[in-house]
């Protein structure tokens, strides 16, 4: 009888210990898992905050290139929005050109001032060492050479010449048909030439996922056309820019970094708003000078500033007229300097 009773006591003790042990285990496991989730959210939030700090910094400095170490999480760049997992930051007017997604342990940022001719904005470009940019064109031409030299040394940029250029390229330059796949996670072909040599995706890149291979064709008149790999060919995604006029050089660099045409259009919309805001300040400022002793020296400046300001209002701005207006303001500024009058910019 006693042994049966002690057996029941033993079983009760074990049951009690197991229940309490289970509760303790579940409590601590739950706590640890919660901490893990919190830590992951914190990491993502910290990346989003870092990107926000980079954007803020970019707004106050231009002509800088930085390589920044980041946790290896996927970052998504959309119209006026940056997201890292659940952590996202929304903006009103974000001027940022980048691939739609970046997953790398470091990012490369570049800032470039947009001067028309006065400084209006700092353009922020973001990419990663996992993205390879393959430039194809004749690099003895001013614009093509400028495009190549504008890309940072920290980014993976390879230049090849396209066929049929005259005079023949330098011996050190390689033809476009010698391009090899160096196993980067994303590849962007950038053709700066009258004719596009890539009617199909080059064979070394045909096995890559469609979303990871894109192409930008910058024609001689500055028109930019976006393409995405579709099987062994290209699916066009033409953009509503004026095809008959040259585009602003700095924004062409933006098109190289943006592999998504919608994101590019969105950032360009924000650039236009910025141009209008700053130009309006200069317009009002010049009105103040025009009433002084130098008044007559400012004749025609308002017309030129209005032309620049209209860049923001039109869906297909007349870039040729804008360039003429920019040149006119540069000339006028020189005249004002010689006459010791307040400068326009």
């Amino acid at each position, binding site marked *: 009888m006693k042994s049966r009773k002690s057996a029941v006591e033993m079983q009760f003790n074990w049951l009690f210990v197991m229940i309490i042990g289970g509760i303790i285990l579940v409590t601590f496991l739950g706590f640890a898992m919660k901490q893990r989730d919190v830590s992951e959210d914190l990491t993502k939030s910290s990346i989003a905050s870092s990107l926000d*700090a980079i954007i*803020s910094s970019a*707004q106050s*400095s231009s002509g800088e290139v930085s390589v920044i170490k980041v946790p290896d999480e996927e970052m998504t760049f959309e119209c006026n929005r940056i997201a890292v997992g659940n952590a996202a930051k929304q903006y009103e*007017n974000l001027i940022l050109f980048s691939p739609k997604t970046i997953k790398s342990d470091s990012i490369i940022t570049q800032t470039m001032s947009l001067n028309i001719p006065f400084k209006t904005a700092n353009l922020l470009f973001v990419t990663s060492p996992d993205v390879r940019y393959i430039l194809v064109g004749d690099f003895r031409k001013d614009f093509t050479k400028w495009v190549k030299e504008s890309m940072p040394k920290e980014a993976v940029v390879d230049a090849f010449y396209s066929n049929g250029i005259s005079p023949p390229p330098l011996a050190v330059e390689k033809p476009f048909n010698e391009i090899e796949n160096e196993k980067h996670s994303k590849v962007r072909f950038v053709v700066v030439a009258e004719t596009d040599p890539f009617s199909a995706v080059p064979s070394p890149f045909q096995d890559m996922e469609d979303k990871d291979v894109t192409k930008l064709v910058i024609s001689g008149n500055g028109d930019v056309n976006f393409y995405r790999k579709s099987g062994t060919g290209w699916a066009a995604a033409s953009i509503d820019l004026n095809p008959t006029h040259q585009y602003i050089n700095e924004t062409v660099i933006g098109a190289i970094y943006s592999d998504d045409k919608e994101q590019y259009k969105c950032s360009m919309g924000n650039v236009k708003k910025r141009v209008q805001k700053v130009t309006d300040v200069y317009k*009002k400022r010049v009105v*103040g*000078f025009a009433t*002084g002793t130098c008044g007559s020296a400012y004749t025609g400046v308002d017309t030129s500033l209005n032309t620049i300001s209209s860049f923001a209002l039109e869906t297909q701005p007349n870039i040729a007229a804008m360039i003429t207006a920019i040149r006119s303001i540069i000339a006028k500024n020189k005249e004002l300097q010689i006459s010791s009058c307040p400068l326009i910019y």
Partner: protein
Amino acid sequence: MTGKSQLQIGEIVAVLVVFFMMSLIGFVVYFSIIRGEVQDLTENAKSLGSVGVVKIALSLPELQCSENNVVRESCFDKAKIELAKEDPAPVKAYPNGNLIFKEPSNYYFDLFGFSTIQVKQVYPDPNPPNAVWTIYDNNIYGTPPTAQGSGFQSNIPIIIFDPGTRENYFGVLTVISYSR
């Protein structure tokens, strides 16, 4: 159940009570440390936010001094900041200055967030004296911009350049950043 086994269960319960109490104390200490760290981080973020707004304000083309696109550091163009007076419908009116960036569209919110930015000429004494240009005001507490509220204030010495007379004045840029 015998008295001995009841005593054993009592011991276990006592051990568990002590264990849970110690765990509870551990949690309280842990979370109080974490809370302290979070408060420090928040303070740092506030000061960094304020410094960020100062940096952006100093480099904004709408305010900056430049000659042939050569930018002068820590310098505001008087002709640009005086544009405030031409603002046809400022959201609020201030006795010594007006707003130039406060707009219904909140275009500048990305750059300045919840903050108040003022420029004050300090030398030579301006006419009228104590000239203050409030160039942005988005105070979440709704207090007048001259009040600090619970914001973090940064004062930066600047030059105010008058392009008409080519004269330079000393001034102070005051940025008050607010956070909840």
